[in-house]
């Protein structure tokens, strides 16, 4: 193709191309301009493949590629609707189903959490120096203070503060537990073991100095949601690390892609579990109700969580 022909090819189409540009720059208004954009986009794509086979100069091809990319994104990135609904369904129905499919990761994460928990608890119960080795003395002192009064009544404003804090702190820790699973799963293992050990040690320490009942009374309402939430986050992190390391014949990127929907549902589940935990911990756990009521309520929560995870989403 001669130079003159190439020039003519470009000149004959410049108007159309600048129309695409102006539609994109100003943003298509109304149905008519949208369908015009769709039409000129298709024509532009035809021009682009023609231009490529005619071997037009790089800057022309680059210009057309950029225009096509912008038009494509504009035409196709129409916001999908019903996101909150679909997320809620994924969290309530899709999540328990997913957790059962990934049960071995959940089991492993739970072991990584509860075994150090037991070690910490029995260690601190039997040996007064154990807790000091795990936690700084200042922390132990403030824990002792926190749980030494019978009634942990707070103003309702304070309840809201604490609920906000639990979301900020606990969901944050859970997200980090998940994300650091990208380090071959090791980050998740660390967070699970560390949190299990610390929480267990606190429980054992308070039990050893006779404050076990106060602790149990405060925590009974939300433990089902909170501890399960932490273990699910760990399971998601382990699943992520697994997908990264054990690719099962896929490319590494392909392996991650295959794991993504599962990770997404697990994370939605974690978030839901910990939001419920934060609400209970903020507004119920410190309430001045009789101890028996709280224990019954707590047992009921375990029943709800277990039933939900075991039977939720079954057909």
């Amino acid at each position, binding site marked *: 193709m001669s130079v003159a022909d190439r020039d003519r090819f470009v000149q004959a189409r410049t108007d159309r191309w600048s129309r695409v540009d102006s539609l994109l720059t100003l943003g298509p208004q109304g149905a008519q301009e949208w369908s015009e954009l769709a039409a000129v986009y*298709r024509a532009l794509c035809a021009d682009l493949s023609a231009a490529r086979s005619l071997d037009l100069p790089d800057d022309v091809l680059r210009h057309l590629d950029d225009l096509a*990319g912008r038009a494509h*994104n504009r035409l196709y*990135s129409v916001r999908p609707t019903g996101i909150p609904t679909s997320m809620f369904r994924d969290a309530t129905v899709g999540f328990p189903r997913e957790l059962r499919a990934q049960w071995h990761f959940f089991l492993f994460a739970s072991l990584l959490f509860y075994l150090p928990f037991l070690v910490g608890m029995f260690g601190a119960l039997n040996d007064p120096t154990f807790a000091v080795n795990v936690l700084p003395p200042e922390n132990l002192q403030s824990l002792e203070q926190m749980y030494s009064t019978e009634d942990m009544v707070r103003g*309702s404003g304070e309840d809201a*503060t604490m*609920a906000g*804090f639990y979301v900020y702190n606990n969901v944050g820790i859970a997200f980090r537990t998940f994300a650091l699973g990208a380090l071959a799963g090791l980050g998740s293992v660390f967070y699970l073991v560390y949190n299990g050990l610390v929480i267990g040690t606190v429980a054992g320490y308070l039990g050893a100095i006779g404050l076990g009942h106060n602790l149990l009374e405060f925590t009974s309402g939300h433990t089902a949601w909170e501890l399960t939430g932490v273990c699910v986050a760990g399971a998601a992190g382990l699943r992520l690390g697994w997908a990264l390391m054990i690719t099962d014949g896929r490319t590494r990127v392909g392996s991650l892609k295959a794991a993504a929907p599962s990770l997404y549902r697990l994370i939605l589940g974690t978030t839901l579990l910990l939001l419920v935990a934060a609400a209970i911990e903020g507004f119920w756990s410190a309430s001045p109700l009789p101890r028996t009521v709280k224990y019954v309520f707590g047992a009921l929560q375990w029943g709800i969580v277990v039933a939900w995870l075991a039977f939720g989403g079954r057909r």
Partner: protein
Amino acid sequence: MQLLDTTATIETPERVRFQYRIAGPGPRAMAWMVDVAVQLVFVLALVLVSSLVTMLTGLQGAGTGLVLLGLFVLQWLYGAILETAFGGQTPGKRVFNLRVVRADGSPAGVQNFMLRNLLRAVDFLPALFGIGVLTMLIDRRMRRIGDLVGGTMVVLEQDSKMFGSVSIEPPVTEEERQSMPVRVDLSNEEVRVIEDFLRRRSRMSDARAEELAHLLGPAITERSGLEAPTWERVLTLAYARATGRDREPT
């Protein structure tokens, strides 16, 4: 000739192929800084609103709870919410014409945005996106771990301008036409190179143009005997003769 490939070829469902420009660490870091500034503004607004809530309800602490909740949302969900709402763009990305799309070029959804933003926590390590930048340098599509897990990439939506068509400036004079060799043979590639040079000529300084023309000019003079006061003119005349443009009416 392509030295460093920073594009991704996309094939749409209609079997149309085009190339996206991949956004590198530079523009993405700048977009991130804008987003951090936006987040700070949100934090300020949050503190203001919360003190209003505290004043109106008289509840000490209700406002603090709100601030903490807001901080959580800003820290973990800022990117996911805004990218979902604005088709893959946060305010920072919008400023620098970046957009998050799926790795196959199709628009990303809430699952993609959630995962890529949660994984920011690991990309940020050990400080200021150390792992993220390292991964971007290794991956051909410059994806950080969050992009790999979320199945996304960040593209640059730029509008590059086309250069104009070739103009022979100043036109070939009668005198030049007489003194030129009858035939000047240029290979197709040489024609292309000179054409690209002439189309970009208006954007260069005279010194730079002469420097570039010197790369090819002497070879043409030696081969064809074509001579002119400057190397640029040598290329222009050779091109005009080889393509028959020395006879075009101006």
